[in-house]
């Protein structure tokens, strides 16, 4: 009887201790979380005020009414709508084509045995830790001088279309697809392509969604490469257009903050809604086993 009497007592002790620990945990995390959100909050607030208010003695902490005015200034200076359209098209095309290439390649590496497989995979693996810096000069010469496609969508898209992380990720994903399922389709007379497209691909759709989000974001936010191959204002992507403003004094900070807010807030909303996919995608793209 004594043991059964003691058990609840100890539980209560644990509970009290946990409550104290939880208190300290939240006490430490809440200010830190506020600090992490502060730059985003200021970005959103500043986008609705004229520069004079942002630089006044009492800068605003709450929204104002100058968003439209700031946006018109931004649009006049950078043709921001065009830059956004370019970014949307480039990021979409990049995501679609990169997904196609990496899923086909990943499927072959995961589900076939063929001569040269380990050698090819080793070659791709070997380039994984090579910094992208190493390749930008030859890539630039190829795109700008040899192919002469500067200022086109393809100039931005082509060089990183066959990305290494993507093929690793898709290979991991396809390894979870049962080979019997594929063989069943083959026995039923499906071609290799149909087996891939109609049987294997639908199984890994959740994994693909995560990778697609990551690829889209990477393309949407890329700066250095588009900066190199896009030299005409109308071909600029959103980050390049924004980048041209930051060094200048003529453009209002209100306008720049509108630009950053438009580029960021839709993704924050999406992130809030699809947090699971984002988190799974980033974690999955990183380390497995």
């Amino acid at each position, binding site marked *: 009887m004594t043991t059964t009497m003691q058990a609840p007592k100890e539980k209560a002790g644990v509970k009290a201790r946990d409550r104290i620990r939880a208190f300290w945990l939240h006490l430490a995390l809440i200010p830190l979380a506020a600090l992490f959100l502060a730059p985003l909050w200021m970005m959103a607030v500043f986008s609705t005020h004229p520069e004079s208010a942002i630089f006044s003695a009492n800068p605003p902490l709450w929204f104002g009414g100058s968003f439209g005015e700031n946006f018109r200034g931004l649009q006049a200076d950078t043709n921001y709508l065009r830059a956004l359209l370019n970014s949307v098209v480039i990021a979409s095309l990049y995501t679609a084509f990169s997904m196609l290439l990496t899923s086909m390649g990943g499927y072959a590496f995961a589900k076939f045995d063929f001569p040269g497989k380990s050698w090819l995979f080793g070659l791709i693996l070997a380039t994984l830790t090579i910094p992208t810096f190493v390749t930008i000069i030859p890539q630039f010469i190829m795109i700008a001088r040899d192919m002469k496609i500067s200022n086109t969508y393809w100039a931005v898209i082509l060089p990183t279309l066959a990305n290494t992380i993507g093929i690793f990720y898709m290979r991991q994903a396809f390894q979870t697809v049962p080979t019997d399922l594929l063989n069943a389709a083959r026995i039923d007379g499906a071609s290799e392509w149909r087996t891939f497209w109609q049987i294997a691909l639908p199984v890994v759709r959740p994994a693909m969604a995560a990778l697609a989000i990551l690829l889209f974001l990477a393309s949407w936010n890329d700066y250095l490469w588009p900066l190199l191959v896009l030299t005409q204002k109308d071909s600029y992507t959103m980050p390049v257009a924004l980048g041209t403003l930051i060094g200048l004094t003529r453009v209002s900070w209100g306008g720049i903050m509108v630009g950053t807010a438009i580029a960021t807030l839709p993704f924050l909303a999406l992130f809030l809604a699809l*947090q699971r996919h984002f988190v799974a995608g980033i974690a999955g793209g990183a380390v497995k086993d």
Partner: protein
Amino acid sequence: MTTVPKRRPAPRAGWWARTPKAPYLFILPYLLIFLTFWAWPIISSFLMSFKDSRLGATAPFGLANWSRLVQDEFFRTALRNTLVIMIIQVPLMLSLATVLAVALNSKLLRAAGWFRFAFFAPLVVGTVAYSAVFRLLFNTDFGMVNRALTGIGLPPVDWLNQSGPAMTVLVLAMTWRWTGYNAIILLAGLQGISEDVYEAASIDGATPTQQFWKITLPLLRPSLLFCLVLSVIGTLQLFTEPALITNSGPGNATMTLGTYLYQQGFRSFNFGYASAIAYTVAAIAAIFSVVQLRLFGRDE
């Protein structure tokens, strides 16, 4: 399946007939782009570092770029700045990310979704967008940071016009942007650790602090190693933040290998010399990766 005959293909059927075609066709599109725009440039860049691109393609091979690199004062400044940022920022970020991951993984945490949102939000923000925001927040005369400092009775800092503070801004900006990313990877690593280990430890009377040092950290080592290698490579390629927040200044105080490479390659169009800089970055990245694997990756 049993109907498939076990016999080998007729000896007449050549190598071509016996080799499966499908896997190669699946890989072909990837491989074409991979070889053209990634594998070949890796080699091409190396070859280019031995050429003086300003003299045209016919210029002979030589070590001119490399001997210039050894003596280049600006290169040394860029290298030093990059390493200083890396040595301060990477440990700072990874410790914060580890603590955050453990906190976010805690069963005691309420409203975990909101906390995750707060810490992971920066990772969807592009480098250009956050560079703009940080440049504004750290403005000497009007920035919110100095307003906050004077508000609590501290002197304002001339953030972007002094070398130390400018480096501090870069470190803070990068920490803000990338801590959440690393915390996600570490969080995934934490969720791979079995509950039983902790239960056994608490039955043995281990405090949470002891559990952190004796269980969490050792088991998290593969994830930490991954974060470490990626962060080091990322820092070696630092470009957008010094280009847009500090403009490499004041003077060359925040010039990095990335901004120097950009300057040499795409302002002076000295492709050969820029390739030599790029390969130095790759070499340093490789050395760091090997050292990190040796030091921290003992098991695998």
